[in-house]
């Protein structure tokens, strides 16, 4: 159904009407797409949203052509997946960031962090470099110079003055529970989960990623569709004023729109 230039399906006023299907995670991606549907309709594009619950199948389906584009992953994950699976995808442009935050119930500020504190991270390896570089920025650790930040793992920590311990085996959705229940731990929580758990990222996080983060959620499509008009229109619409203010209002800081 990759028919952005299909002649068929014209609307009544004679304009070219094309149809695209985009795979997305349900929050916030699908919700954002749904918000964009009427705007696209005005541009003569019918947008179908296919919701996914995992992070493997959307890429797989994209490659097989079941969907025209997907909108669920950030750039480092996209790159990692392309490398792992040999996908030939193109990044059509970023839409938003879900800033990663590091939270703690017991420490007021980073200075309070004690020797040997455990840092909890999700079992999603794509997040590890992100969290570690965030911690490096705050001076909690330093990472090996030779390693690319986004690919860093716990093994790449060069200096660890506070002897922090790392536990990176927990499902991302469960981390708020750990935050709630465990004493004297630092928990790295994806903002969407933090919000579901009634945390306020801007207030509760000890460290919160800024909009300069490389972890931008992008629209990805097969390389041959890089210049597809409908898909590029989609990106444009998603970066429009209307959608950006929708994101800011709806997600209260948990999702930050980007436009470069």
């Amino acid at each position: 159904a990759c028919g952005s230039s299909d002649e068929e399906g014209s609307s009544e006023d004679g304009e070219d009407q094309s149809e695209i299907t985009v795979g997305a995670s349900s929050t916030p991606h699908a919700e954002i797409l749904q918000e964009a549907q009427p705007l696209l309709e005005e541009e003569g594009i019918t947008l179908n949203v296919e919701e996914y619950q995992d992070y493997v199948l959307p890429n797989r389906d994209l490659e097989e052509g079941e969907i025209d584009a997907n909108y669920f992953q950030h750039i480092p994950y996209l790159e990692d997946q392309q490398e792992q699976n040999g996908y030939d995808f193109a990044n059509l442009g970023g839409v938003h960031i879900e800033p990663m935050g590091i939270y703690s119930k017991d420490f007021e500020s980073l200075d309070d962090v004690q020797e040997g504190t455990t840092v909890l991270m999700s079992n999603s390896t794509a997040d590890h470099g992100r969290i570690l570089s965030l911690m490096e920025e705050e001076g909690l650790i330093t990472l090996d110079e030779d390693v690319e930040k986004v690919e860093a793992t716990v093994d790449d920590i060069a200096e660890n003055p506070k002897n922090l311990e790392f536990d990176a085996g927990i499902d991302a959705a469960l981390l708020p529970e750990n935050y709630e229940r465990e004493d004297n731990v630092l928990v790295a929580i994806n903002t969407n989960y933090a919000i579901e758990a009634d945390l306020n990222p801007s207030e509760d996080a000890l460290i919160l990623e800024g909009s300069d983060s490389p972890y931008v959620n992008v629209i990805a499509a097969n390389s041959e569709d890089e210049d597809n008009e409908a898909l590029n229109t989609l990106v444009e619409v998603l970066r429009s004023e209307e959608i950006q203010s929708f994101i800011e209002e709806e997600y209260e800081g948990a999702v930050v729109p980007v436009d470069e």
Partner: protein
Amino acid sequence: MLEELFPNVKMEDMIEATNETLYMTTVSVAGTFILGLLLGLLLYLSGPGGLWDNKLLNWITATVVNVFRAIPFIILILLLFPFTDFLMGTIRGPGAALPALIIGGAPFYARLVEIALKEVDKGVIEAAKSMGAKYRTIIFKVLLPESMPALVSGITVTAIALISYTAVAGVIGAGGLGDFAYFYGFQRRDFDVVAVCTILIVIIVFIFQFIGDYVSRRLDKR
């Protein structure tokens, strides 16, 4: 009133999820019953003292059964992708969950079948042998009928295990109540949805259990 208690619950979603669960469960129970019975019989018959007493066959069957029981269900789904794709023409939706459910459930039921068959009185098997019964006759007219109450109870247990497997099958978009609960409960923390889903699952479990118990009791003429 109900809406206050369960603000996030949408009726049509629930009905759809229930239908998906029922569909996946009933079809996979049927498949598991047949495949499991077959494997279980094979295990029992080829086992020590069984009718076919055959070390090699027993070893092979036991290996197949154990391997498929050993593989975590979630990995099984993954491994079965090519097979599922070939068989169902898709790897998504409730239909695509069936091969994994059946292949995951059958080895499990096979063991329950084996246990049930072992409890059959040796005397009546001997009686059938003494009449010159074929193995087929012994199987269908002695072993299965005499162990029927336990076989029925066993498939009830398996059916209920399959219901909870369907939750895991959610990763391939199979849907169903368990997945709905997982998704909303785990990821969205809408506990009212979790509660409703769980109640619906419990009701389904009760219905299966009730039917199983009833049939098993009616069959038991001891």
